C-alpha cells in the first residue's frame, strides 16, 4: 500500500509517478510530487519508481514567486 494525499492506494510493481497519476482524477495540473519528503518534478515522473509503503503528496499547481 502507498499513501497518496492521506488516502491508501494499492501499490503495484513497476509503479512510476506517471503511471500513478494516470489513475487519479484531476491530476493534470500536478507537476510536482513529494515522496517521503523529497520533491520530484514532472520531467522525472516517467522514470521515477515508487516503492511500496511510500507516502506521497501531490503538490498543487506551481505558483512561482
Amino acid at each position, binding site marked *: 500500500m502507498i499513501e497518496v*494525499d*492521506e488516502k491508501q492506494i494499492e501499490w503495484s510493481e513497476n509503479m512510476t509517478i506517471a503511471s500513478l497519476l494516470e489513475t487519479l482524477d*484531476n*491530476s*493534470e*495540473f*500536478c*507537476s*510536482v510530487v513529494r515522496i517521503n519528503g*523529497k*520533491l*520530484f*518534478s*514532472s*520531467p*522525472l515522473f516517467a522514470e521515477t519508481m515508487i516503492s511500496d509503503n511510500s507516502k506521497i*503528496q501531490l*503538490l*498543487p*499547481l*506551481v*505558483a*512561482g*514567486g
Partner: protein
Amino acid sequence: MGQIHLKEIKSISYEKSEVKKGYTDQSLRINLDSNDIIINPIEDKIKDKFIGGKGYDLWLMWNNVNGDTKWNDPENTVCISSGPLGGTPGYPGGGKSIVTAISPLTGAPIDSNVGGYFGPYKKFSGFDVIQIDGKSNKDIVILIDGIENTIKLFNVKNLPEDSYELSDVLTRHFDETKPVNVSVVTAGPGAEHTYFGCLNFSWWDAGRKMVRYKQAGRGGIGTVFANKKVKAVVARYGAVSMKTNSPADLTALKAVTKTHAKEIHTLDPKQNRMAVVGTTHLVPIMNDHDCLPVHNFKFGSHPESKVIGEEVYEHIFDKGFDGCWKGCAVACAHGVKDFSPFTGPYRGKKVFVDGPEYETVAGCGSNLGIFDAQTILEINFYCDAYGLDTISVGTSLGFVMECFENHQITIDHTGGMDLSFGSRFNALEIIHQMARGEGFGSIVGKGIRKMKAIFAKDFGANAAFMQDIGMESKGLEFSEYITKESLAQQGGYGLALKGPQHDEAWLIFLDMVHNFMPTFANKAEALHWFPMFRTWFALCGLCKLPWNDIVPEDNKNNPEPAKVVKHVGWYADFFSAVTGRKTGPEDLISMSEAVYNFQRIFNLKMGYGTREHDTVPYRAVGPVTVEEYKSRQKRYDDQLIEKYNLDISDMTSEEKVASLRQKREEQYEVLKDAVYERRGWTQNGIPTIETVKRLGIDFPEVLEVLKKNGVE
C-alpha cells in the same frame, strides 16, 4: 562606535485622523528642501479611483513630477503607503507596504511591495500614504509617532552606516521599553553608491527579541532615499487589533480571516511547507523544469543545485515564528542565526541573516555558478546590510561573469579580479566595493543597461552580443526565472509596467508545463487577468503569497485552477468587510485596471510606455549561442522541423540558431499585438481614449499626455 546624535530640527503635533473602514483619508508630505510637514486630505474621488496603496503612491507622484524629472531631482518623490486592508492582524499577508519612486534604473515609476510593520504603523498613526520629496543637505531621520501624535525631523550624526545595525539602534532609541512599537525604514551605503539600492523595512521579532527586516528591493528606491540624505523613516505605534482598522463589519472580517488562516495552517504542511522552507522549495522545482537561471540565464538546471535548495536551508533556518506581518499563517520570512561572515566588516562576528528566499538563491547562487549555501547567505547578508537589491546584484554579476568568460572584459577592467562563473570571493569583493563606491564594483552598481554602454565605449566590448545576453528590460534587471520555453512569461516580463519582475504575471508552468494557453488569445487573456489581479494586492496593502502558494484541496477541480477562485472570493469578502463597499470578485479586476492603465500612462509621461520599450533581450527568448542551442538541441531541432516546417538537414548550428531566433522574435511581436488589443491599447502599446474613459481615468492631464503621443 560613539554615542549617536539626533538633533531635532522640526516638530509638529497633530490631531490624529482616526481610521475608518481601513482609511485615514489623509496623506503626509515631508518636503526636505524646506523641511515642511504638510498633512493633506485625500478626496473621495481619488479614493474611489485609486483605492489606496500603489494607487495613492502613483497619484501623489504624478502630481509632483513632470516628464523631465530625473531620479535625482528634488521633485522625485518616494511614496510609502499601506492600503485599506493593510494592518489586519491574523489575515495571512495582511500587512504590506508599497513603495514607489522614479527609478534610477528605468527613469519611470517603480514599485515594490514589502513586509515589516511600517505601512500599518504609519496608517494607524493617521496617514494612508506618506510622500517624501525635496532634498536634504544634511543626514536626516523622520519620525512619525502615532503614540505621541507628533512628527519630528532630526539631523543626525554618528549613526551606523549599514541597515543591519542602524535598524537596531533606531528601534531601541525610539522605544527602548517596547521596541515592538517601532518600525524603521533604512537604506545603507550600497544604496548611496549604486543605482539598485533597496530599502529595509523592519519589525521587532518578539520571540527572538531582535530587529528583523524585509526588503523593498526593486528599481533603486533605496538609491533615491539615500540621495535625499534620508537615513531613516521611523513609525511608532502601539497595540494593533482587528478593530484598529475600524472595519465596516467586524464579524465578517473575523470570519474570513479565520477561514483563510485555518486553511493555511492545515494545508501548508501538505503542500509547499513554506512555514518551514520559505520559498526555497522552488530551487529544486525550477531546476528540474529547466527554469533555474544558471550562468547568466544560459542554462536552466545544474546538478549541483541540490546543495542550495530546500533540503539544505530547511536545516539551516532558525526555528521559530517567521511572519513579516503580525500573525501571518504562512510565516515564510525565515532567517539564519549565528552566521559568521568570512569577509567584510562583519567578518568573524555572529549575525542573523534574513533570508535567503528563492530569488536570492537563484540570482546570487546558481546564476553565478556559486553552489554554496554559505556564500549565498553571506551575499544575502551584505546586500541587505548595504541596502542592495539581491536580484539586481545577482543578475548584474551574472552578466559581468559571462562578459568576463567571453573576453568582453578582462582583469585589466576588473581591477585584477577573475570574475569567471563560480568566483565566490571576488563576487563578494564586488559587493563590498559597491558599498564603498569603489573600483569595478562602482561600475557594476550602475546596472546592466549602463554597464553595456560603458563596456562598449570604454572597453571595446561587442555591443550586439551584450544586448543579447544582458538580462534587463526597461533598464531593470530580470528576476530569476528562465523564460526561453514560455512565450507567455516572456510577455509576463517584457510587458510588465516597471520592468521584468515576476510580480505581475508568473505563467511559466501554465504555459510551458501544462500547455494551458496554446493560442495567442489565451496568452493575451492571461496577460490581462493575472497582472490585474496581482496589482490588486498592491492597492490594498497585502502580500500575494497566501493567494496561490497554498490552495484549497478542491482547487484542482476548478476549470481555472491557476486563478484560485475560492481565494479570490475570500479577498472580495475581506474588502467588503473592511471598507463596507460591497464587492464581488470581478470588481477586484476593475479596481486594478484603472490604476494599471494609469501607471502605463505615467510611463508615457516620463518618455517611455510604448511598444519599443516592451522588448526583452534575446537570451530571454531563445538560445543566443551555439553552446546554448546544443544544450537543448533536441528540443530546438524538433521545433524547427515540426513547428516551423523547416528542413534542417543541411543547416549548420549557427544557421539553426539564426532561424530559431527569427521565428521566436516574430512570435514575441505577435504576442505584443494580442496583449495590447486585449488591454484596450493601440498597437503602439498606449491606452486608447475609449479605455481611459471606460476606466474613469480620463483626467485632463491624462488626456494631454495621450494627445502628445498621438492618441486622441
